[in-house]
């Protein structure tokens, strides 16, 4: 399909384990976002890439969270030493262009990865 894909769809980890979540954005999309959605809440911004450059990581909750997009397409969100409070759905979104200060274009979301930390 032509949409944003994420894998795995579900991940169960024991507390203290490291996990890696993958995002395949829509081909040609410059911008890529990661969001975290806790149960009963809306998605919250984690980090933003423009091509391979991570321009904003202000939403990452701790230094256990790390994201990369080395070739400007696929991105990986890594969580080290997972904690129970990391349990959430992790959403990836892509956008065709960067959003300038005076312009906006739509973000397309993947289905998310539901992470459960036991």
């Amino acid at each position: 399909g032509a949409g944003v894909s994420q894998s795995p769809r579900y991940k169960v980890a024991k507390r203290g384990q490291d996990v890696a979540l993958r995002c395949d954005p829509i081909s040609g999309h410059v911008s890529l976002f990661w969001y975290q959605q806790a149960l009963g809440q809306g998605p919250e911004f984690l980090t933003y890439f423009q091509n391979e450059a991570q321009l904003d990581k202000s939403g990452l909750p701790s230094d256990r969270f790390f994201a990369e997009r080395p070739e400007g397409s696929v991105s990986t969100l890594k969580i080290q030493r997972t904690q129970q409070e990391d349990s959430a759905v992790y959403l990836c979104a892509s956008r065709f262009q960067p959003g300038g200060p005076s312009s906006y274009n739509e973000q397309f979301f993947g289905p998310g990865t539901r992470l459960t930390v036991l």
Partner: protein
Amino acid sequence: DQQVKQNSPSLSVQEGRISILNCDYTNSMFDYFLWYKKYPAEGPTFLISISSIKDKNEDGRFTVFLNKSAKHLSLHIVPSQPGDSAVYFCAASAPTSGSARQLTFGSGTQLTVLP
């Protein structure tokens, strides 16, 4: 501090009637507002948006109204259909975030359209 608030966690409407979903925001820097629809086990899907220079945008059965002075927006669905049953998220973005323009979301409203 929630910058985008959806105070109604749920709403039930009869098929064929109007659904009105509400959203309030506190950040006066927001200049673009969006509504996303989410089905279970799927990612949010873009529905409709509005720029702060407008007060209304219409797309088929969906209309978004923006009241900047009240920092309030609403989504109207007319007529409502059972397939509209989903969680609706209000979201906003600000130019102060530079090229990111990341979205700030409300907590969502579960709409149930009864046949």
